[in-house]
């Protein structure tokens, strides 16, 4: 890589890197308050999440949904939209996966599995399009509508699980607080089936779908006309409109694609890991974590892959830290601090600038 390439890389990496370092530093204070040694804690964190193939496997299955929701949020950001609704699109995607899995259970697995993923993704896309449409048609802020749609999806799904897709209704068991499961033939393979060293970990082939999506989104954003239009609208909507690019069309389209990714997160989670959906009073958190993943990844598909892995490590390692006697909430604090530093990017930029001038002075 030439010198310019390195400079470009550093310019894009310094904000998230400094934010991550600050997050861990502030996390260390809380670990000390909790009466533990930060070095011991962080060693437990990283040993527990990347020390050995089984542990890496556990980290990978935690990473998988975050790749999709991170891509979802990042893609919307590129059009200047804030998709805070990945949470709800994830839920809609997962319950649609269950419905398809049940009603088409007679199809062979090689057809049923793609069908589950396709309709899960489509459902997420349609759900997100509601917010896109309201924004394009009435100028309603998508943050508000997607928050409302999140809770509508959560409660609506609880209703469906309670009354329609319940094992009691469909299989004649007693009443359950979860849905029926998708048939075994329609599930994604575990990585341990190919590489036994992954052991008991639940890592599944969904991660490859995630990586493929990241590459596809990269291609779509940077190598196609549609991607160019979407980025133009995000960069300067007035100028884009002046240049003949329809703002409204691109808003709806970007929300649709963003929703497809979040819906796919739900469908892949069902097909690869959980197989059924629980009734729940609270959100899964994957959508909100997706916001953090997108921000740390600089809203770039490849950056999202890296940052999803980081958050996978944090999420898997938090349990290991807890076993070492450190409250797992420290991880949440670290994540929050990272996001807030990225939100107030000026602080980080100031630090970077000061460093730069110091380096320049030294050079002189």
């Amino acid at each position: 890589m030439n010198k310019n390439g390195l400079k470009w890389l550093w310019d894009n990496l310094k904000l998230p890197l400094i934010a991550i370092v600050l997050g861990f530093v502030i996390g260390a204070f809380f670990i000390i308050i909790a009466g533990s040694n930060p070095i011991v804690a962080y060693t437990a964190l990283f040993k527990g999440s990347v020390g050995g193939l089984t542990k890496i496997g556990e980290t990978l299955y935690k990473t998988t949904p975050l790749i999709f929701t991170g891509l979802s949020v990042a893609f919307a950001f590129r059009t200047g939209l804030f998709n805070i609704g990945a949470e709800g699109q994830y839920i809609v995607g997962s319950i649609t996966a269950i419905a398809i899995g049940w009603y088409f259970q007679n199809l062979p697995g090689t057809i049923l599995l793609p069908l589950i993923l396709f309709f899960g993704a489509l459902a997420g896309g349609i759900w997100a399009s509601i917010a896109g449409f309201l924004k394009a048609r009435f100028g309603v802020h998508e943050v508000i509508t997607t928050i409302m749609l999140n809770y509508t999806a959560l409660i609506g799904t609880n209703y469906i699980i309670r009354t329609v897709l319940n094992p009691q209704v469909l299989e004649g068991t007693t009443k359950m607080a979860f849905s029926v499961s998708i048939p075994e033939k329609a599930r994604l393979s575990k990585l341990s089936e190919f590489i036994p060293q992954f052991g008991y970990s639940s890592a599944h082939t969904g991660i490859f779908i995630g990586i493929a999506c990241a590459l596809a989104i990269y291609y779509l954003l940077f190598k196609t006309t549609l991607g160019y239009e979407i980025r133009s609208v995000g960069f300067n909507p007035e100028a884009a409109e002046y240049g003949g690019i329809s703002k409204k069309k691109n808003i709806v389209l970007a929300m649709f694609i963003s929703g497809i990714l979040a819906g796919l997160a739900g469908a892949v989670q069902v097909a690869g890991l959980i197989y059924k959906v629980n009734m729940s009073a609270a959100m899964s958190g994957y959508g909100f974590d997706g916001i953090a993943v997108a921000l740390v990844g600089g809203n770039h598909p490849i950056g999202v892959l890296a940052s999803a892995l980081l958050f996978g490590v944090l999420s898997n390692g938090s349990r290991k830290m807890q076993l070492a006697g450190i409250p797992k909430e420290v991880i949440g604090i670290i994540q929050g601090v990272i996001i807030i530093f990225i939100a107030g990017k000026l602080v980080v930029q100031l630090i970077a600038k000061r460093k730069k001038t110091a380096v320049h002075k030294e050079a002189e």
Partner: protein
Amino acid sequence: MDNGTTVVVIAIVASAIRLATPLIFASLGGVFSERSGVVNIALEGIMIMGAFFAVLFTHLTGNPWIGVLAAIIIGILTSLLLAVVSIHLRGNQVVAGVAINLLAVSLTAFLLEMVWNRSGSTPSVEKALTDNPFEFLEGIPVLGDLFSRFTPFVYFAFLMVGISYYVLFKTSFGLRIRAVGEHPRAADTVGINVYMTRYICVMISGALAGIAGASLSIGTISLFREGMTAGKGFIALAAMIFGKWHPVGALFACLFFGLADAIQIQAQSFGIPIAQEFLQMLPYVATILALAGVVGRSVAPKADGQPYEKDMG
């Protein structure tokens, strides 16, 4: 109305008003913040902080009023984080709000473990604010039963609606707030300090959301439980929109959402045949419809969500 029906109606109305109380405080907080141009997604997180610190300080001092004061102070401090990022650093207000919500959940759970050495929920505090402060009202026929179920927070919430209306629409400070939220550049030109006005509004918003949290913990079940806000901060945000960014509108929206919640909770015990989920969904669906203009169009202040950069020229 026979006696049985009266009892049911009173029970539902009392429950509706009690459930609406935290929402009223938080949505008034939202009104102040957004009228000045700062989107406050952090209401949920600030409520969590308020709920926890109210219990903590009631536990430490034995005086629930000090708990309320602590909730107000922690609310203001938490909102300052939002203020600094979104006003001074001109960062993304929604991202800052998301971060605060995440931090509040983790921080309170962390402190819960540090202080009480347990997780999930705190023990009950001995003295809380769950009783009717005006006993003489209980003597009124029929309605006395209603008043007996009100907490000090209920009266305070209604009082705050009046005060907020007065401040926003009858004082020059309120005029400045609205000017800053609609057209900060013009406000700046006529000598209004945009940054200062926004800071004050976000802090008022934090104080109100802090009280909202306190009314939920020491005003309802005398303890703090993880996840007890359960999206109420977002329902308050919905109520603010449904009430068209107006204190009285927000009040009615909160009472409406509170009523839906109360019917949902009581529906089964009274055998009302309606799926609980439809009533739970009501606030969210109603707000989406309101925004789409189906039930009277809601329009945000013009400069809502936009950072303001003072011209240095």
